[in-house]
């Protein structure tokens, strides 16, 4: 265990207090610029407050935090949330005068606040209730009639507003404006008639609306999914990580009577700083719907339940036959929904037992693993403090919402420079980022023009002055550091499924070559896709960011024999399956029928393969088509770790039990190996985790035990040596002492590491747990070499080049299975410039036929000035059974040109 690597950094380096103040008679050193309320809190003095929120600018309006502060003219009552510390300042937080003022404010707040605590969601976790008990006068002197308003208003499908309970702290309106950048709610009217209000025709439809519910100190804003779901005293909770997308926000998952009922964002300083997106916040609902609860075997059109021993025998039989037939007869697709431990177990099973390197956690919708793993990685903090952030990714607001929030805030509030490279304007450029465009297929050409030494040539889809400006921005930022490009952070993703990934890999390689100091944040969006890649669920990649050949000796000493040849990625694998070259296809929570950009290929592959085995938590299109289905535990039903887009590894913890007889995926791997007469070498999470730490080079020093320590609740960024350790805050941290009093994140992550039932199955005790690989550790993957960018075909005058992007709420499994989120999915449309519709004689909203190489689909047309005249923009995964989505036009490689026709 590399104790030194993780322990050393300590908390001491973080702060250098220089201002000395006296708080309640005790000398305290404070950071310059710190608010009095913060200094007091660090000194252990809690000043009551309502409007103050540590992640927003102070406004000092509720007056609850009044304390006596010394000034040139003696002591006066001042809001401690607004006044900053000054040397020699004296603060009295509980003098008679301060207490009277605080009690007075509390009494005033109750003048119009209804006493409906018994029916209020907030009852039991309400600071008004609490403070009325601790800071308020005993009995009420208020005998007048209170203000009355009509009962709750639905201000969005997810948020209810009970105006009577509002205490006008403006936390919600400030969040909407200041943090989310969408002032869809604002105060209306004046004085004690103030109410939070939307514009009548525009609901509070924000991806971030749930945060307002979380930070509302009273029960004025409530979440539709949680209303009356539980009482605070019935809640059990655990701190864990949201795996709805790859940002990996830290959360507290709460359950009541064995059911998940609520997620709250934890103030993890380097990651989500207490915010969540609504998809993450309410996505846990998917746990309850459409689950695979027992092993099943296909029977006619449906499936019949079978018992585990029978299922294991049948799956093992098929796999064994395939493995015996030769190397590479089995393919394993998926893994982004797994924990790191699950992914490692399957990576090992595939290589050593199934004898295949045909493994891929991505469905041809991401980036090459070598690019993701090989480029120097940035953290989110590095990005928000960068000289320049370059985005070359899908719309972050749609794909990685909380990363967007952090970047937006830095852009709008702290002056972060952002250069958005995008074919279609995205949310960050709407918020003030500089934008440069490009025609799909020309991304590498654009990057070449931005970084090359020569005068930039013409870049299709980019206007010249935009290229010149962007070039200048990049050059100025790149020149700043010691190594060229230091301080530049590139957010690299896959904005367009109708454009080859290789263009982005080339673009990244060019950027790295031109700016060796630049760091990258890979913007892949699926839950634990980064963990899956890190754990070797990609062809030619072994756990710990190691190439198959470079790592062969090391891994053969640890694991045994490895497949001889590099396997195929998802597309080639499915093509091979369609051609009958594959005996078994294992789907690890993957749904290629719905998620592959080319659904027709997925269909042919599933038909062409000998048998399909799905390790699945939900009945989706692909698991429903599988011959054998093994039920897997979903998020919050198993423990382990997950890895976010920074490479940050955090603990995920079990809160509820999986339905029926579902198991964590790693135990399924162990059981299958045992059934096939093999031994993976671990039979509990501790030994599995310890093996990863020992074997996988990027994971040195990181295991579940280390991650479970209080100092590491915000995770550790792998590899530790390269990035250094950021030690999180110490002591129990409150999520938000005001909105959710008493809800502290758990000190130790005490949830059991192993799911009760699952341990009992087949595997032998891990005899080799202590043994390790021999020889020297293989090097981590390095940045891929740059190549000459391929040129895209020219666009003919009658065609439009297709952009297939993503939306937060799509028809993927998670959203589809969440009753609160499913209705929020937008209609499928094709967005084009208004002149295109004019030319066709089609009105906004009318259907058109979009024809491409892969077929034709009918979609409603939508006129959008922001879309360039030669583009057609649509969103993936919005199609339904009867109405195929735009992704069915995606076929083969290369940008896709389509034509629009009237119907």
């Amino acid at each position, binding site marked *: 265990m590399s104790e030194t690597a993780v322990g050393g950094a300590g908390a001491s380096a973080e702060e250098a207090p220089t201002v000395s103040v006296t708080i309640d008679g005790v000398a305290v050193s404070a950071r310059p610029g710190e608010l009095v309320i913060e200094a007091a809190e660090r000194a252990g003095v809690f000043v009551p407050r309502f409007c103050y929120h540590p992640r927003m600018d102070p406004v*000092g309006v509720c007056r609850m935090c009044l304390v006596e502060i010394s000034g040139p003219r003696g002591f006066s009552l001042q809001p401690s949330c607004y006044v900053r510390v000054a040397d020699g300042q004296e603060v009295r937080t509980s003098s008679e005068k301060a207490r009277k003022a605080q*009690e*007075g*404010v509390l*009494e005033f707040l109750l*003048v119009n606040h209804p006493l409906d605590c018994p029916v209020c969601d907030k009852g039991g976790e309400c600071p008004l209730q609490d403070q009325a008990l601790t800071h308020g006068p005993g009995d009420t002197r208020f005998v007048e009639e209170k203000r009355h308003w009509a009962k709750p208003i639905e201000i969005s499908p997810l948020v209810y507003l009970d105006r009577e309970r509002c205490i*006008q702290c403006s936390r919600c309106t400030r969040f909407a404006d200041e943090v989310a950048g969408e002032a869809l709610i604002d105060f209306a009217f*004046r004085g*004690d008639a103030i109410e939070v209000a939307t514009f009548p025709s525009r609901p509070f439809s924000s991806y971030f609306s749930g945060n307002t519910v979380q930070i509302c100190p009273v029960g004025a804003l409530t979440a539709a999914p949680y209303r009356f779901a539980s009482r605070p005293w019935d809640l059990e909770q655990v701190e864990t990580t949201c795996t709805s997308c790859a940002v990996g926000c830290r959360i507290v998952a709460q359950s009541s009577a064995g059911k998940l009922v609520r997620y709250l964002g934890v103030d993890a300083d380097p990651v989500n700083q207490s915010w969540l997106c609504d998809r993450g916040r309410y996505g846990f609902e998917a746990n309850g719907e459409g689950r695979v609860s027992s092993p099943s075997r296909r029977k006619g059109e449906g499936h019949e339940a079978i018992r585990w021993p029978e299922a294991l025998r049948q799956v093992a039989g098929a796999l064994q036959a395939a493995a015996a037939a030769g190397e590479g007869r089995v393919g394993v697709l998926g893994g982004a929904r797994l924990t790191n431990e699950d992914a490692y177990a399957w990576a090992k099973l595939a290589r050593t037992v199934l004898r295949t390197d045909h493994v891929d956690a991505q469905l041809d919708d991401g980036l090459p693993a070598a690019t993701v793993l090989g480029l120097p990685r940035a953290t989110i903090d590095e990005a928000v403090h960068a000289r320049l952030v370059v985005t070359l990714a899908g719309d972050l607001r749609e794909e990685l919402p909380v990363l967007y929030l952090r970047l937006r805030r830095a852009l709008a509030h702290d002056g972060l420079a952002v250069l958005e490279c995008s074919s279609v304007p995205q949310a960050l450029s709407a918020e003030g980022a500089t934008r440069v465009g490009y025609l799909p297929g020309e991304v590498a050409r654009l990057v070449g023009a931005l970084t090359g030494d020569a005068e930039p040539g013409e870049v299709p889809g980019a206007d010249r002055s935009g290229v010149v400006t962007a070039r200048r921005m990049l050059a100025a930022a790149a020149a700043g550091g010691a190594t060229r490009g230091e301080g530049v952070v590139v957010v690299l993703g896959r904005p367009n499924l109708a454009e080859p990934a290789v263009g982005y890999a080339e673009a990244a390689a060019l950027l790295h070559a031109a700016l060796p100091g630049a760091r990258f944040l890979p913007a892949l969006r699926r839950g634990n896709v980064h963990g899956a890649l890190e754990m070797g669920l990609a062809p030619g990649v072994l756990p710990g960011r190691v190439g198959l050949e470079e790592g062969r000796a090391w891994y053969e000493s640890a694991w045994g024999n490895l497949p001889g040849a590099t396997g195929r990625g998802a597309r080639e694998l499915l093509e091979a399956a369609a051609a009958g070259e594959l005996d078994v296809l294992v789907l690890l929570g993957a749904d290629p029928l719905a998620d592959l950009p080319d659904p027709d290929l997925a269909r042919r592959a599933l038909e062409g393969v000998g048998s399909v085995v799905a390790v699945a938590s939900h009945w989706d299109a692909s698991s429903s088509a599988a011959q054998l289905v093994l039920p897997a535990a979903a998020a919050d039903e198993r423990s382990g770790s997950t890895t976010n887009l920074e490479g940050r590894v955090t603990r995920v913890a079990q809160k509820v039990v999986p339905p029926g007889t579902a198991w964590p995926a790693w135990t399924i791997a162990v059981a299958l190996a045992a059934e096939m007469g093999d031994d993976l070498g671990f039979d509990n999470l501790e030994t599995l985790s310890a093996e990863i730490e020992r074997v996988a080079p990027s994971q040195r020093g990181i295991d579940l035990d280390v991650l479970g320590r209080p100092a590491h609740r915000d995770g550790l960024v792998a590899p530790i040596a390269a990035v250094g350790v950021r030690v999180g805050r110490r002591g129990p941290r409150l999520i938000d002492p005001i909105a959710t009093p008493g809800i502290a994140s758990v000190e130790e992550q005490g949830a059991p590491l192993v799911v009760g039932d699952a341990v009992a199955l087949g595997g032998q005790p891990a005899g080799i747990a202590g043994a390790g690989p021999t020889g020297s550790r293989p090097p981590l993957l390095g940045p891929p070499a740059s190549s000459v960018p391929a040129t895209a075909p020219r666009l003919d005058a009658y065609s439009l080049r297709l952009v297939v992007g993503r939306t937060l709420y799509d028809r993927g499994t998670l959203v589809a299975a969440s009753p609160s989120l499913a209705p929020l999915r937008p209609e499928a449309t094709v967005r084009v410039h208004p002149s295109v519709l004019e030319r066709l004689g089609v009105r906004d909203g009318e259907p058109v036929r979009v024809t491409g190489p892969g077929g034709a689909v009918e979609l409603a047309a939508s006129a959008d000035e922001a879309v360039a005249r030669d583009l057609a923009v649509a969103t993936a995964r919005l199609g339904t059974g009867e109405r195929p989505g735009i992704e069915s036009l995606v076929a083969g490689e290369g940008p896709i040109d389509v034509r629009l026709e009237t119907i």
Partner: protein
Amino acid sequence: MITDAAPIVTARVGHDDSHTLEGYLATGGYEGLRRALELGRDQVRAEVDAASLLGRGGAGFPAGRKWSMLGRADVTYLVVNGDESEPATFKDHLLVERDPHQVIEGATIAAYALGVAQAFVFCRGEFALGLERLTAAVNEAYAHGALGRSIFGSDFSLDLVIHPGAGAYICGEETALLESLEGKRGFPRIKPPYFPAAIGLYGAPTVVNNVETVSNLPWIVRHGGAAFAALGTGSSTGTRLFALSGHVRRPGWYELEMSKVTFRDLIFDPSLGGGLAEGRSLKAFIPGGVSAPWFGPEQLDLGLDQEAVGKAGSMLGSGSVVVMDDSTCVLRAAWRITRFFHRESCGQCTPCREGGGWLEKILRRLEEGGGREEDLDLLMDACDNIAPGVSWPPQQTTICVLGPSIPSSIASAVRMFRDELLLHVKEGGCPLRGAR
């Protein structure tokens, strides 16, 4: 003794065409501005310092001192405060309607002295006629060369925008006014750091001066600061426009030399207030707008002097005097004033937002007969939670001084007329029922 000091800001008010450029020029209009341009910036500031011109908006801060505090920056602003909404105050109303050019000339002189290139007149929205006349006057002033590029051929240029308010008393408070001028809800800003002179309009250093304050400038520049300072006594120099209302025979505005005239003169002199109605006696009067604590007959002989009134425990404020004779129910008067503050609280600070409404409810209950003896202590204690100490000048638990203005009338009524309030409790309602 009522002095015969010549009117300074109301000299033109008797003339029908006083609001037109023609009428203005015929009576010495824009001479002050021309003179200022001859004198130069520094000399204009010296004259204003010498005049000891106190702000007429309520706080009475010396204009020259305020100007000297303006932060240095590339862009600075002047905002003239014509929001006049303090109850019983109606002097700026008069000035913008009857002598809009004087406001513009005064603003231009101030802008010149401050080196400001952009000025705003924030005019109360309800002054529709005033807005029309100010707008017409601005058009005329540009045409006349008194505004715009190279004013009167000098190298000084100024743009002036008339900005209409929209009905909110709090926008008279200078930082709320700036928020409102920025197109926002009129929420006062926290001082520090938001002192307008440091961080004002759009974050730039800004001087905010009252309409009457700037209206004095043409005269001061023309006649010299010394001539202005020769009027009045002590720091209360020049003349001041007093608004007299309530139970007097001759309510109206009176421009009087400061300090020299007493409240008794103002209320009773036949040439001024003309006394009370037949058979009535004075019960109380408010010396400087409804934010000010009340005075009784014993303070009648105080001069209209900022310092003297301050020392006696109240303020001259906006220069409006409300007279209440013995037919007045003081509880009802206090209730009506409290209702005003309740309705006009911007709503940011809990003590002001909720306290105002609570106090209003208690007062109404007392007036309607549901009072309890302990309500008087409750009133005072709730007031204490808004303005600790309930004394003058007030301490505050709020951002701006609207909050601590609420207790003034309530504390006055409770302290001066405790027995009358208790009578309300005893008799189950107002003993003066039917009284106004």
